[in-house]
């Protein structure tokens, strides 16, 4: 019985071996290879001693942090209000719909909106501010990245708030707490698990957005993702690219650790 099941799961184990374990090992191995293909520690050394790489990592961090904060600031109230609408599942679906639109197409829309004669500038002129260079600025990068990430924050936060037992809310009210106090003492603490998942879902990808840095920020914002892509696909320095990949993986585990679920264990079986 067990044997047969194991047999059926073989493709899955093969997958783990081939596409999870092996690629990570390759990345690790590659990061110890120099430009000439020999074993070396120079990549790691360069990375940790180069002002350029360290600044880039810090900046990348800062942008990811800002994007996460902005998405959270916009999504949290939206998620909270959503849970109190009559037809919440439908409205949630409506707000999540834009994720089904190809991300490149949305970016392409922003190229038009933010251009010198685009809608955004037409509005600025209408308001009397006058046209500003919007495309290829850091602000635009933040705006577009936030736009793209909002649904990924909205969902987990919504789910967390939605799972809160209504009786808790009623109890709090019965005990005399007003709406604000109920929110602060009951709803907010209980929604934190959703916020944590949201941060994971937004922060890590924000470190590695590489096509936005080019299309919207005109390569004036360099994230870890941009640098990795450049090293792999343009400058052919796979060793350095892999080193940064490993750094990104370590950061990823750091973020996962900091935002881990406080409940014990993984809910299996």
């Amino acid at each position, binding site marked *: 019985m067990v044997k047969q099941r194991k047999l059926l799961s073989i493709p899955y184990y093969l997958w783990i071996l081939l596409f999870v374990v092996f690629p990570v090992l390759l990345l690790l191995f590659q990061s110890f290879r120099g430009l000439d293909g020999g074993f070396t520690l120079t990549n790691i050394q360069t990375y940790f001693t180069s002002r350029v790489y360290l600044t880039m990592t810090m900046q990348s961090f800062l942008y990811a942090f800002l994007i996460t904060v902005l998405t959270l600031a916009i999504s949290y109230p939206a998620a909270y209000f959503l849970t109190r609408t009559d037809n919440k599942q439908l409205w949630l679906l409506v707000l999540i719909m834009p994720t089904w639109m*190809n991300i490149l197409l949305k970016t392409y*829309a922003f190229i038009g909106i933010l251009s010198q004669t685009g809608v955004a500038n037409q509005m600025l002129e209408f308001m009397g501010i006058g046209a500003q260079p919007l495309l290829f600025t850091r602000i635009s990068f933040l705006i577009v990245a936030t736009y793209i990430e909002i649904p990924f924050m909205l969902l987990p936060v919504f789910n967390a708030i939605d799972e809160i037992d209504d009786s808790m809310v009623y109890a709090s009210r019965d005990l005399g707490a007003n709406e604000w106090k109920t929110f602060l003492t009951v709803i907010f603490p209980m929604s934190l698990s959703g916020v944590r998942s949201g941060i994971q*879902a937004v922060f890590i990808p924000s470190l590695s957005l590489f096509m936005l840095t080019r299309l919207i920020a005109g390569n004036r914002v360099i994230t870890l993702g941009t640098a990795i892509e450049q090293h792999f696909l343009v400058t052919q320095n796979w060793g350095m690219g892999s080193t940064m990949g490993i750094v990104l993986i370590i950061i990823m585990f750091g973020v996962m650790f900091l935002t881990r679920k406080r409940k014990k264990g993984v809910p299996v079986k």
Partner: protein
Amino acid sequence: MIKNNKWASLYLIIVFILLYSPIAYLIVYSFNEAGTMNQFSGFTLEHYSSLAEDTRLMIIALDTIRVALLSALLATTIGTLGAIGIYYAKRSKTQNMLLGFNNILLVSPDVIIGASFLLLFTVVGFRLGFYSVLLSHIAFSIPIVVLMVLPKLEEMNENMITAAKDLGANNWQVLKEIILPSITPGILAGYFMAFTYSIDDFAVTFFVTGNGFATLSVEIYSRARQGVSLEINALSTILFLVAFSLVAGYYFIQRQQRTKRLTHMDPTNHEKAVTP
């Protein structure tokens, strides 16, 4: 729409407008007579007819769908069997380890997945093109399928299996008659998610494609740099309508079937994609 709060409704409406305005913008200008996204000069359908004549784009669209359909199917098969494997793994230590591996790909940034797969294909000497893209899509979709199927397995009534065995059912029959039917909603949700992942992917495909094979994302990336072409707007409109009708159809079918709680199958259960 919200009970007793105008400001809350207003806020939601603003968020709604913000989220939809770029899409609306694309759609409106797809009918623009002037070839730009700046001034709207008059209504035309010419961008749609030039889209229909753009055979390269048509072929790419069909290829994108082909990769998505096939990769999601294979990922669902492997993922479902994997979930059953994890579920029946005896020790919880093994389970946790397997789940850990499963989640690595889920949380890894696209760039890492793309770069490491490119390394993999290079080392093995695998030709870049349709098959490398297909394999990569299968690979990054499997974990989400596992996460969609596992909860259904946990909800399954073990007594049914014991009963079936007592009645003389063999393993194959148990799998076919008991396990699979009870996890079907999870499998379907898994397929749906895998399909979406594949259609949406840009970064991984960008790394592992070659030999003239492209998906829509990759093609749009290169076209968006050549200049604004309202053909892309026309394409967006069509894609949006397709996505919209799929989701709307899905929602209403769901609603009709919905008894009280069926949230697990909701495709919007995206949280699972990111919860370790």
